[in-house]
């Protein structure tokens, strides 16, 4: 996946005096996609916790006695997953130019699925009896 080089100063001549260097799009793509993955993980864990009492208990174990309940695990694991995804994607893409439109579309899909997963009417449909 490669994009055409940018010609920022041709579009905005005021940028010429800033002496900006060309930057690869990889780090931005990594940030976008990792954010989508993070939100997706949040929704996925929320839904799975409703469906699985054992997972729910494991997620509760992340509260370290603070009384937060399974929300502690859902959010902590989602944040760890987000950060890991960001680091890995950044390392893989830091010198390349992935197609940002493609990456953003994938990130939006992940994010929307994650948002749906956090909606009570959705995840409670999977609640175990």
């Amino acid at each position, binding site marked *: 996946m490669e994009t055409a080089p*940018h*010609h*920022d*100063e*041709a*579009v*905005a*001549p*005021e*940028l010429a*005096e*800033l002496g*900006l260097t060309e*930057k690869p799009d990889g*780090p*931005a793509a990594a*940030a*976008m996609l*990792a*954010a989508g993955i*993070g*939100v997706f993980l*949040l*929704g996925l864990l*929320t839904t799975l916790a409703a469906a699985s009492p054992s997972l729910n208990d494991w997620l509760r174990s992340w509260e370290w006695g*603070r*009384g*937060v*309940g399974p*929300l*502690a695990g*859902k*959010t902590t694991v*989602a*944040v760890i997953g*987000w950060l890991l995804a960001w680091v890995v994607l950044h390392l893989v893409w830091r010198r390349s130019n992935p197609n*940002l*439109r493609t990456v*953003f579309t994938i990130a*939006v899909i992940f*994010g929307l699925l*994650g*948002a749906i997963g*956090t*909606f*009570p*009417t959705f995840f*409670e449909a999977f609640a175990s009896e």
Partner: protein
Amino acid sequence: MELATRETWAVIHGLILGTIYLLAFSGGLAELWSLHPGWESLQGVRRRFRRLYVGATTMAVTAWLTVITGTWIVYPWYREPLAVQGEDPSAGCQELTLPDPETCSPRDFLLSNVRGETEAWHTFGMEWKEHVAWAAPILATAAAFIVLYYGPRLISRPWLRAVVIVMFVAAFAAAAVAGAFGAFITKVAPIS
């Protein structure tokens, strides 16, 4: 005009951090929206982006502080299981008009329905709020990174600028849901 410790933390979480977040969002959105090639001098570009960097970073930082204080400080007080007595999960809430810090937590109070139909404030409102809120700092951080990474190059890239705006607005939407339900729940069942 005194506030108890719990009330103070609830104010910090919802009112103070929420206000800062809203201001940072408003400023950042206005700056991004009005970025157009040829509209600014060199000095204008530098000043505008200094404001944008501060606004985007502030939005991300306040989002993290809000969800962390909410989840790890305020939320445990909200959900303490105080009302259970024997087989009755709401015994401690009987005849109360507001939660009681000794016998009936806000969660107990809402689920007990002792003051009208309040159960859905927890089963829907709080359940949605406590989860979706964490999308806000994730999205805000990614948006802030892209702003900081590209800087003035955003002026010449309208599509990328639109992407950042979408991420900003999505972060705000997540926080708005959480903030709105937080405000309503606090009215019905305040932490004290």
